[in-house]
């Protein structure tokens, strides 16, 4: 009986036996990092060239199936032209290669069966990209379909997956790897760069998606960097390029002996100090030296490319990772983070946990400034205690932790201090600044200054926005912040931690992520002036609509600069 691939009951006994044996074998293996499988560069031309050229002199028989996800981004990037140019340049290398085309997301995915008429494949690709498809597409299912096509041809079976948009829509990644391994198919992947420990979909658990798929998207098998800090408008995780592909695609390449190539459009490599905040120190002309990443450091901090369960097992026995997750959990309980970690730490293991929100402190929902100040100071004390405890745990166990875990844990230490500073600024603002104005609305100020907010109306709460830390903490020494010497003292503590972190991790995704946070500025909010709702007149609708493919929401993307990828001076083409 044919069951869908995603149903565990369809998995043959041989799979389970193999999985058990493989897992046992893997326990003793050293970690497999995404850096081993990810090629440098951010262009289209080089990956296509390398994949078409193959690894030999072109005399060995080969069947190469292009698995195309014809998204608008891929069409705009000029993939059709680049492919045709590579076909022309590599004609000699392709003399013993049959090409085929499988299109992800189509009812009939096989567009061109294996053929020596390479121009026909180029023409078919061009036709597909002439009408690109937006929305979610299951590229993992397409890989399984393509594997069946590849093994029908002659010689070595190779797939080239080209998907700039859909690597984050997972469909049983490890099962797909097994199928591809079973058929001895190599998968080369060309995709977009993932975001560091991406929390985007974790924040949107109700996003509609195709049946039996999961939306993940980060560079690692799990979100291994805390996100949702109190008083940060947007998680830095969602603004930070990782230098690697989404974990699922890296896993596919790693599991089949393939490679991962990354692509970025030139507009993605521009610098923005803080996309959802303000920068006090430049007019958008910042060229931070930290943006030129160090390849060796990026490789050192790479995520694991192993099966998800193996990653959880490895991380679960990492003492620094365990300490970080425990601190993260407690910080969420204290209301310092909006989201608890998606991981549960057991005796010596880690396992996925259901999404859990952090405690809400209710610091901003009222204009009761004295109460808000008191609560903020308590939370600031909690932050200091957690910060110090985690710092000493890192000190004690740092040598036993992986480089990535140590980077994430130290990030949490710095962020706890930043959160503490922001809470103390808030407490001072509630205690000193806001009452100063609301208690004395006729207070005079000299031109050009005017009252900082509307003191005639009664506030109902408080809001805030972030002032970018992209230029570091030191420029803030000259900035007037509420709280006087006490806040200045915390600012110096933050500067020490921040500078030391950037010294170690500056030219890497982790340093980048740290700079995408901010010190905070507050202002009161007021009840809205509303009119009564318009009367809704119901009406019946007779047209029937069919099921609609869930649409992928647009999001702000970024890529590690420069466009040639993280380098120490050289670069891809």
């Amino acid at each position, binding site marked *: 009986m044919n069951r869908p691939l995603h149903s565990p009951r369809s998995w043959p006994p041989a799979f389970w036996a193999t999985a058990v044996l493989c897992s046992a074998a893997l326990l003793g293996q050293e970690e497999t990092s995404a850096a081993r499988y990810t090629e440098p560069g951010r262009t289209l031309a080089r990956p296509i060239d390398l994949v078409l050229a193959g690894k030999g002199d072109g005399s060995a028989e080969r069947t190469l199936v292009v698995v195309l996800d014809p998204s608008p981004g891929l069409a705009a990037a000029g993939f059709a032209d680049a492919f045709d140019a590579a076909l022309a340049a590599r004609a000699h290398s392709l003399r013993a290669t049959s090409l085929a085309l499988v299109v992800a997301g189509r009812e009939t995915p096989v567009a061109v069966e294996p053929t020596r008429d390479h121009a026909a494949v180029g023409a078919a690709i061009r036709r597909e990209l002439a009408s690109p498809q937006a929305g979610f597409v299951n590229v993992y299912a397409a890989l399984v379909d393509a594997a069946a096509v590849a093994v029908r041809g002659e010689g070595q079976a190779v797939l080239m997956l080209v998907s700039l948009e859909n690597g984050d829509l997972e469909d049983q990644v490890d099962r797909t790897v097994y199928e591809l391994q079973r058929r001895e198919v190599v998968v080369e992947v060309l995709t977009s760069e993932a975001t560091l420990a991406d929390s985007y979909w974790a924040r949107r658990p109700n996003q509609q998606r195709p049946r039996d798929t999961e939306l993940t998207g980060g560079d690692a098998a799990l979100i291994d960097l805390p996100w949702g800090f109190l008083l940060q408008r947007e998680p830095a995780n969602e603004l930070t390029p990782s230098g690697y592909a989404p974990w699922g695609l890296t896993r596919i390449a790693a599991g089949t002996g393939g490679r991962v190539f990354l692509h970025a459009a030139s507009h993605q490599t521009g610098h923005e100090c803080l996309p959802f905040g*303000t920068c*006090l*120190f*430049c*007019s958008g*002309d*910042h*060229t*931070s*030296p930290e943006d030129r990443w160090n390849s060796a450091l990026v490789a050192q901090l790479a995520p694991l490319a192993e099966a998800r369960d193996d990653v959880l097992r490895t991380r679960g026995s990492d003492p620094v990772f365990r300490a970080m997750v425990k601190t993260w959990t407690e910080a969420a309980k204290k209301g310092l983070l909006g989201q608890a970690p998606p991981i549960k730490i057991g005796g010596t293991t880690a396992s996925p946990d259901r999404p859990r929100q952090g405690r809400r402190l209710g610091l901003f929902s009222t204009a009761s400034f004295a109460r808000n100040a008191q609560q903020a100071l308590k939370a600031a004390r909690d932050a200091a205690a957690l910060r110090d405890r985690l710092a000493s745990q890192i000190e004690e166990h740092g040598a036993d932790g992986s480089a990535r875990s140590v980077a994430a844990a130290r990030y949490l230490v710095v962020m706890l201090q930043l959160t503490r500073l922001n809470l103390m600024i808030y407490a001072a*603002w509630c205690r000193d*600044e806001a009452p100063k104005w609301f208690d004395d609305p006729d207070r005079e100020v*000299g*031109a*050009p*200054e*005017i*009252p*900082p*907010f509307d003191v005639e109306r009664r506030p109902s709460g408080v809001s805030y926005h972030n*002032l970018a830390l992209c*230029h*570091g903490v030191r*420029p803030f020494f*000259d*900035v*007037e*912040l*509420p709280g006087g010497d006490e806040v200045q003292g915390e600012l110096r503590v933050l500067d020490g931690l921040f500078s030391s972190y950037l010294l170690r991790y500056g030219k890497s995704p982790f340093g980048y992520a740290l700079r995408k946070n901010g010190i905070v*500025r*507050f202002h009161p909010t007021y009840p809205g002036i509303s009119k009564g709702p318009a009367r809704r007149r119901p009406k019946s609708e007779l047209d029937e609509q069919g099921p609609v493919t869930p649409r992928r929401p647009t999001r702000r993307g970024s890529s590690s600069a420069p466009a040639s990828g993280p380098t120490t001076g050289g670069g891809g083409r």
Partner: protein
Amino acid sequence: MKRVWQPWVIAIALATSIHAQSSDERTDTAGLIERLGAENARDRNHAYRQLQRERPADLPQVLEARLEALPHHGRQLASNLLRNLSIEQRRHLDQRLIESDHPYVRAIGAAGRIRLCQQTGDQVEHARAIEAMASAVRACDVRVELGAILQELGAAPDALVVDALVGRLSPDLSSSLVGQILQRLQPSQEDQAIESAVRALSTSEDRRVRAIALAFLVRAHRDAVEPLIELIEKHTDTLQPAMTQLQGAARLDPRLLEALLRRFPTLRSPQELTQLTRLLAPGSASRVARQLAALVDDDDSRMADGAATQLSRLARSLSDETARELLASPAPLARVLAADCLRRRDDRSGLPAVLDAASTAGSHRAETARVLGEFRSREAVPVLLGLMDDANVKVRSHAWTAVQKTLQSLYPFRRFDFSTVDYDPNALDRSAAMATLRRYWKSLERQRR
């Protein structure tokens, strides 16, 4: 009886009127096209603009009939008009033009057919059009028509057309024509025919032609560096044509690079300065910046302004080392731009140099005020307040913007309405506004202590 023939009269009158009107229109288009060939430039430009504006429906037919009879300058204007026609209109017209005995007319038709075939993918017609273009190049009057045909060609002509162009090269052609031809040839070490033809040019009486030929050979990695250096060092008028030919060269020979860098102090116009900067900056931004820094205080204000503009553009791509070196430049503007370059990279070590530059007189003060604003520094505020009273309105305006930026950055928890100060950089009397601002700044400093 009257009622019987009156409608006939009206109908006949109407028909006559329509016929007359049509005749006038035909005559009108034909007349305008005739005027394209007028001796008087004003007359032909007027006719051209009118045809362009009105786009009469019978333009393609009339042009086809009269194109060959027009003098050369008229045909050039007609060719521009043809470019505005739709693909359908041109399809039939070009088919006839391409068979003309007149080389330039044939080239116009061939160019249109080539563009069309690139869209439709018709290889057979494309090959015919290329052949027609090549024959037009071979047959044309090189001094009168070749330049116009080159405009029809586009940047990268087919090999057949290239061969035809190479066949027309000769040492007694004008430098302008030689330059245009060579810009359309791809320098290659494999093509012996092109090399021979270009080497023949290097014996031309016209030294500008020799410079262009030698520069082409340099781009083709032939050994022509020393003769080119000797030529441009001896004759300054050969520099500009050589530079035009060298544009796009992937990498310049180090000897040639040195020789070109030495040319900076001898440049005669801002256009040459811009061209030389564009040629050398991609490979040697820092060295070019040093040369420009030496020119920003030039006695010739056009050269000084040109150098300042180019240096501002280049400042973004200076290495840290060069930027720090320029902080010690004798030219204040160079120091200011270098400091700004470092500031963008979170290095504020150039601030003292900018503060110092603000205290010296010169055309750099406006840029200095702007850069001080970008530093968002407390130290800069008193200096900026002084610059707000400068004699130059541009300095005052930049300083005012800078003060606003700085205050908003240093005091993010305060709110400002700068219109309440009533400061206008254009006002003759600014004393009250200045006093208000100084008083305010003093109060802020007191609060800080």
